């Protein structure tokens, strides 16, 4: 085996170049200069021109660095102590201690089976790519999983277009801008937000973060974001740790503070399905009590049950459900009534 296997006229595949780059940067303690990388590492060296500007190759290297960092590989830049600020004197390396999965992170066969099932949850969503990569890395540990968990096919869909850009911004700690339609307002308003957490509560995705213009923490519903989410280049410091759990706790508190009394038709879908979530029920009277977080969201859900459920209290929910049913009834009224209007 000698270097002669890598024939210069051969087109080196991208993964080959990336793999060679990672190996080279892991093996160096002091770091490699960009010129050293481009002139020696496989995938670059074949195209390196000794007296040229190598501008294309430099751009290629910049993109490769970003790709590698996206995978969680700690590619570092070290400034030269003698020549601070000089880009040509920058050195690149991957410290092995920060690259290796720590020794204490080992999984049992049962845990491995559970992790595989957790990855299944994201089938078809953008998160499945991240789950898959994580599972590949974990398989590198060589632990044989227990038989896969059979009998389950869990799936969580992500249907808000705002989700993916927000997740990217969350990860990179970048400010976002979007138009937001607050309930009760007629027109959307532009918001600038430092995203701290994206949480799913009661089937709805929420964004929590700092509203830069209002100078305060706010929680937004992803479903009320109108149009595109723009990611700005402006970054911010790390969000307070565990903030996502605090927000979930707050939303739960909100849910418990709201209670609705509903009359449900005996033997109906509403009785069976809503009844299972009831915190209190009087079967003879056909009245159940449920907690809810958001009037608008709960009213949408109740409207779907049509005549099977009637809201007794609170009044705000009563009105909201009645208005929704009216909208649907009017939108589907016979053609002649449309002409009358």
């Amino acid at each position, binding site marked *: 085996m000698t270097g002669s296997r890598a024939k210069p006229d051969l087109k080196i595949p991208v993964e080959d170049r990336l793999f060679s780059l990672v190996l080279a940067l892991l093996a160096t303690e002091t770091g490699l200069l960009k010129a050293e990388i481009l002139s020696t590492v496989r995938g670059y060296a074949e195209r390196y021109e000794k007296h040229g500007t190598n501008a294309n190759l430099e751009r290629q290297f910049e993109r490769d660095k970003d790709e590698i960092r996206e995978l969680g*590989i700690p590619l570092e830049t070290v400034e030269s102590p003698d020549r601070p600020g000089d880009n040509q004197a920058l050195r690149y390396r991957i410290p092995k201690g920060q690259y290796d999965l720590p020794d204490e992170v080992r999984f049992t066969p049962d845990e491995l089976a559970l992790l595989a099932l957790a990855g299944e949850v994201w089938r078809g969503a953008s998160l499945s790519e991240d789950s898959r*990569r994580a599972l590949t890395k*974990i*398989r590198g540990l060589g632990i044989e999983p227990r038989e896969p968990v059979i009998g389950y096919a869990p799936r969580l869909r992500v249907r808000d277009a705002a989700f993916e850009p927000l997740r990217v911004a969350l990860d990179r700690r970048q400010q976002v801008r979007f138009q937001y339609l607050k309930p009760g307002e007629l027109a959307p308003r532009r918001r600038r937000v430092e995203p701290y957490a994206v949480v799913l509560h009661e089937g709805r995705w929420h964004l929590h973060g700092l509203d830069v213009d209002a100078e305060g923490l706010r929680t937004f519903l992803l479903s009320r974001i109108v149009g595109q989410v723009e990611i700005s280049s402006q970054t911010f410091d790390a969000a307070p740790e565990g903030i996502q759990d605090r927000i979930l706790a707050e939303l739960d508190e909100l849910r418990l503070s709201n209670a609705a009394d509903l009359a449900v038709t005996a033997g109906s879908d509403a009785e069976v399905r809503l009844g299972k979530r009831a915190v209190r029920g009087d079967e003879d009277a056909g009245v159940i009590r449920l907690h809810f977080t958001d009037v608008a969201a709960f009213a949408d859900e109740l409207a779907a049950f049509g005549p099977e459920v009637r809201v007794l209290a609170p009044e705000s929910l009563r009105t909201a459900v009645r208005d*929704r049913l009216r909208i649907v*009834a009017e939108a589907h009224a016979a053609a002649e009534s449309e002409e009358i209007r």
Partner: protein
Amino acid sequence: MTPRRQALRAPDKLVFLLSLVPYLIEQQVIGVDEAAAHFGVPEEQIREAVRLIAMSGLPGDTGTYQSNDLFDIDWDAFEDGDEIVIVHHVAIDEAPRLAAREAAALIAGLQYLAALPENADSTALASLMEKLRAGASATPSGLAIAEPAADASLTSIRAAITGGRQLEFDYLNALGEGGRRRADPLRILSQDADWYLQAFCHTRDDVRNFRVDRMSALVVTDEPVADHTGLEVPETLFQGSSSDLDVVVDVAAEALPLLADYLADSSTAQIGDRLRVTLRLAHVHGLKRLVAGLPGLVTVVAPAEARTAVADWASAGLRGYEETSVPEG
């Protein structure tokens, strides 16, 4: 169930190479078939990766990739015995850390599974999530999921699946018809907060998806389930069939993703500020619930019976409020 194989992108291939190397080092001698099974990939993907690894390494002091700076394998064992033996390795010997977003995706997936009754004791899940955090190269991003605990009857259903026992339960279908069913449970499917049992229904003599929250008086019987090997089990929850109802609707663009499961085809037409699409549903009873739950976002255009069914459903609901309404000021 074989998952659909997608073409891997270069970053995925890199992750695979970086994970395969420490695995091969640790195994010392391993068959291509075993390695493929371990990573859940085709054998040819393993062979390709091994060939690439075997000619990779470090540029070295001279920048010429001398043999001492390269990985090496036992080529005879590889080419004649389809076995992999790494005889020399450089630079890496451990699995790489997880990216923050990779850890976050698995942690959120585990939080979703916390809704299952068998995960009600959350300490095992919590310690697993802690390991994922410790294995990430940066603090996992603030993604979190709280799902209400799934129906407790899942415990019995699970027991019936693992024990191979028939189930008996009362079921209220979407048409509002109730009845006692006997079924061989196949698997539990979920979609967001909704849980379904996929089962071979003896009453209907076919595979059916039952909403778990519409099941009651559930009993795990002593009767063993029949042998269903070779039975065609649908991968998805909603299956179109020729007997289904095609309905033309106008939908607000932002609400289109909410109808994704019901779209008959991918064609859309712009009608004013709405999109006109065709939905495929089993019957009008499902449609009226779907449309009434998306007030102001979806309007049925045709057929007329479907339009009428939705109008009747909403009007009937509305009457409930008029009869008992307090005079408005």
